[in-house]
Structure formats: C-alpha cells, structure tokens
C-alpha cells in the first residue's frame, strides 16, 4: 500500500501546464490522431485517389473536345480546377465530417473535460488535413502528366502554386471545421455541410471560362475565391501572369481563416449537447 500512496502523490496533473509548448503538444497529438484516421480509412483511397483520377479523366474526355479555352489546351486548363475542387472534396469534406463525428461521438466531451487548449484540437485537425491534399495532389499530377499536363511556368512558380493551394485548402478546412461544429451531427453535416461544394466549385472558371456564362452569373463567378485561386494556379503552372490572382487568393485565405477559425473554436468550446 505504501507504493500505491506514493504513486498517487506523484500525480503530474496537480499543476496543469500552460503556454506554447503545452499548446504544441495538444496540437501535435491531435494532428497525429487525425493522420492515423486518414491513413487507416478506406475514404483516403476512395476520395483521395480514385475520385480525383475519375474527375480528371471524365472531364478531359467528356468536355475536352467541346470547350474552347484560352490557350487551346483543355487538359492544361482543367487540372488546376480539379486540384482546387479535390481540396474541397478531400480535406475540407474530411474536416467537416471528422469534426461533426467527433462532436457526436463523446470523444469531444473527453477532450473538453481535459486540460487541453481548445484551439489546439482544431488546429491539429485542420493542419493534418493538408496530408490528404498532398496525397491526392501527387496522384492528380501523375495522372495529369500522363494525359499531357505540364508545369510550364518553371520550378519555383510550380512550388509556389502548390504552397498556395495548400494554404487555400487550410483556410477552407477552417470553414469546414466551423460547419462541422455547427452541424447537429454527421448526417446533417453530410447533407447540408457538403452540398455547397458543388455550386461553389462549378460556378467558377474551374471547368469552363466564365465568358460562356450569363452576365448575372458572371458577376459572381468572376469574383469567387474559387475562380481566383484556380486562375492563380493556372498562371503559376502555365507561366502566364498571375500576380493579382495570387494576392487575391492569399487575401481570401487569410480572410476565411480570420473569420471562421475563432468562430469554430468558440463554438467548439461552448457546445453543449
């Protein structure tokens, strides 16, 4: 019994730690958890690998001959659009569903009853979702290159484009996290929380030039961050000027994070079932 008593006194939990190292431990543990979930889930293969390849092949075969695009090469035009759309269907959908499932699951209650910074939980998740994008981006680039896509703008712009895509994806994942904590459960998250991705990605320059759209729609389609980000990537990957679109995409990303991250963290903290 002596040993047991000593054991209890040795409790590390009596003096809770705070501060940056503590916050980083929380965020990195949450990130590791999410990475394990991503790697062990069949959804990675389905939505991270099969779906992007399917979209690339469908769009390039079905629309490739019919759509007139600037530069004339539809594959070169299409790929950046698919990249951004697959970020939505991958990381952003993953964050929304993951957060919504956690809220339902009871594991969030455990996290919230522990001395963990509430922001670190969500930061760990949104950051680790980048992994999903990296995996599917790699597959998309390989498939794209097979059917004729090339990084024509050189090495540095290509790297910059990938970085921009990841950052934009991170911003949208925060939006996904906000939707996930706001949803009443995984089912409503799936029904309501993901459906916006279709109009959001298609009402843009991602698949066809906006010039072909009716005027009233162009007002939206020319200015949506979807168009801005896709055009920025096109510029960087094709070697055409992209300066304004890159800056605008960065501004959108920062704006989305600044608005949705604090709201998501607050909602996560105050949520009571």
């Amino acid at each position: 019994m002596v040993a047991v008593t000593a054991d209890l006194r040795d409790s590390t939990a009596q003096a809770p730690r705070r501060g940056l190292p503590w916050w980083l431990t929380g965020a990195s543990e949450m990130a590791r958890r999410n990475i394990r979930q991503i790697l062990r889930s069949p959804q990675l293969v389905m939505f991270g690998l099969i779906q992007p390849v399917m979209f690339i092949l469908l769009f390039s075969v079905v629309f490739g001959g019919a759509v007139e695009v600037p530069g004339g090469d539809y594959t070169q035009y299409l790929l950046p659009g698919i990249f951004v759309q697959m970020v939505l269907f991958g990381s952003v959908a993953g964050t929304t569903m993951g957060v919504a499932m956690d809220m339902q699951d009871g594991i969030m209650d455990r996290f919230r009853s522990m001395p963990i910074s509430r922001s670190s939980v969500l930061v760990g998740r949104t950051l680790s979702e980048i992994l999903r994008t990296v995996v599917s981006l790699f597959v998309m680039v390989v498939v794209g290159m097979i059917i004729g896509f090339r990084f024509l703008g050189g090495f540095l712009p290509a790297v910059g484009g990938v970085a921009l895509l990841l950052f934009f994806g991170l911003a949208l994942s925060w939006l996904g996290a906000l939707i996930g904590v706001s949803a009443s459960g995984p089912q409503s998250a799936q029904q309501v929380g993901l459906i916006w991705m279709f109009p959001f990605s298609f009402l843009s320059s991602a698949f066809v030039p906006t010039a072909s759209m009716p005027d009233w729609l162009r007002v939206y389609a020319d200015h949506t961050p979807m168009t801005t980000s896709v055009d920025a990537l096109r510029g960087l990957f094709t070697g055409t000027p992209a300066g304004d679109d890159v800056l605008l995409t960065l501004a959108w990303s920062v704006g989305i994070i600044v608005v949705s991250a604090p709201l998501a963290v607050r909602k996560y903290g105050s949520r009571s079932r």
Partner: protein
Amino acid sequence: MPAAVLASGLSKSFEGRRGVVTALDKLDLTVPEGTIHGLLGPNGAGKTTVVRILSTLLKPDAGRAEVFGFDVEKDAWRVRATIGLTGQDAAVDRVMTGRENLRMFGRLFGLSKRAAAARADELLQRFDLDGAADRQVKTYSGGMRRRLDLAASLMARPRLIFLDEPTTGLDPRSRIQVWGLVRELREEGTTILLTTQYLEEADQLADSLSVIDHGRVIKNGTPDELKAEVGPDWVDVTLVDSADFDTATEVLRGKLGVEPVVDLEAMRVRAPVSDGDTIADMLYPLKDAGVAVSDVALRRPTLDDVFLAVTGRSGEPASNDRTRAAKGARIPTKGGR
C-alpha cells in the same frame, strides 16, 4: 482538506422542443474525498447534468460547484487537470488502437512520452486489455471498450473520477469486471462519483448515495439506510395446486417467523426474508412437506421500490409494461436528460 465535490444550489434548464425543461433544481451535493458516492435516479432525473457541470462541460444557470476547492467555472483549467471522466458512450478513438488511445490521452494530460507509454502498458495489463492493445478499438467488444474508456480517464491518476452509468449496456460478466476495477480505484484513494439507474450497482459500490429526482436530491444516505427504508427482500413462492396454500403458508411462517401474504389469484405465497435466508432454506422444507412448487424467486428491492418508498410514487409515471428482473431492474424511460 476540502471535500472532493461541494455543490450548492445548482440549477440548470434546457430549451427543449416542448418548452423549457428543468434538469437541475437547486441541487446540493457533497462528496468526501476517498469515497464512492452514487447518484441514483431514473433517466432524466438530472444525474448526467450534474456530472457535466462538475466536469466543466456545462455551466450552471445558478449555484456554484467546487472540485477539491477549485471553482468549476472560474478555475475550470485546474479542475480539468484533477478529474477523469468516463461517460455513457465510450469516448475513445475507434480507428486507433487501444495503446495509441491511451498514449495520446496521457500526452494530452501532460505526461512525457516515456511516462505515457509506461502508464499505458501498466493500465492495459491491469484492465486485461494487453492482448488487444494493438488492435483497432472498433474491433473491441462493448466491455473492452468501456474498460479502455476507464483506463483513458486514469492515465494521469486523477483524484476524482466521474463514472456516468459505467455499466449500462454491459453483459453481467463485464459489469462485474468493471465493478472490481472501481473498487480497486477506491482502495488506492481515488474519489469516485458514480451515476447509475441500478439499485444493485449502487448497493455494490457506493459508500453513500444521493437519490435524485426531477433535478433535486430527495434522499441522502448509505445503501443500507436506503434499503432499510425500502424494506427487506421478499420471497415469492408460486404453487402448482391451490390445495397446498395452507401447508405452504405454515412452512414459511415456521421458517421465517413472519406472517406470509397469500395471493390466491397469482397462486403465490409471499414473505419478507432477512439477510442470510436463501431460496434453498425455503425450498427444501416445502418439498419435505409435499408442496408442489412451480417457481421460487427472491425479489430484491429495485430502484422503483426506492422511489416508491421515498416519494410515494413510482420512478416513471407513465409506464405499465415494466418488467422487473430479480436483479438490477431498470426503469424504462423515454429519453431526455
């Protein structure tokens, strides 16, 4: 030394679909350190709400609560570092293995990597999970998941553990296993606040009890005090032939020293028994006297009986299809908290 839990005047209502529902109504609660305290009550009585407030998940509308002297609202951070929570659903990650879960929770509680790994191994062994430690939790049985859940709350050796209906939905073997673990924790000096709908569970584990109904504590006492209030166990002897009533009554009267109650319609003779009387004590004399018996059952007092004794009414008003098992009768309810 402050009490492990000190709550006074806790009130909480929720906006429900049918208007405002009062979950807690000026509830007072004291739990001394080192004891197992049971919150006993039907579904919707407010047990879970008490646990959620004390574990900092929910803010009370009124009243205040302290855990080891730390205010659950103002000092939530320190409270969180002191407690472990095991809720109704197993709050562990299904995709990760048991070992990964425990290590993660250990790290999140502030243990070093090495300490978390060592503590995880120790708990896996102690909770009889070492064989399944490296399997994904989704392959676990309900009992294994519940044990892992309990182990997760113990990673940082909390001084106070909340067990919110820890055995609901478990098979009897797993239930007894969890009870054993809970007793061991108390031996080590951990304070435990247990909520349950089972009188037997409260009786088995708790040093003291609060019976909760409609968000208030309606009775405090030890399990023995409550049982004394409810009355003793009863034996029900069902006869085959109504001609045996007199003999059976006589045998039971002689054996138990009390006057049995005869229920002609149910073909049954009933009598209160005292501690130590077993079914065999009654069955053999009846057999010797030539009484044909179709059933003998020892009916333990249920939570329902406690409610009847304490409040003068049943725990669940609108329910007539209640089936009472001999042990651990559960009151059927209709959701809500």
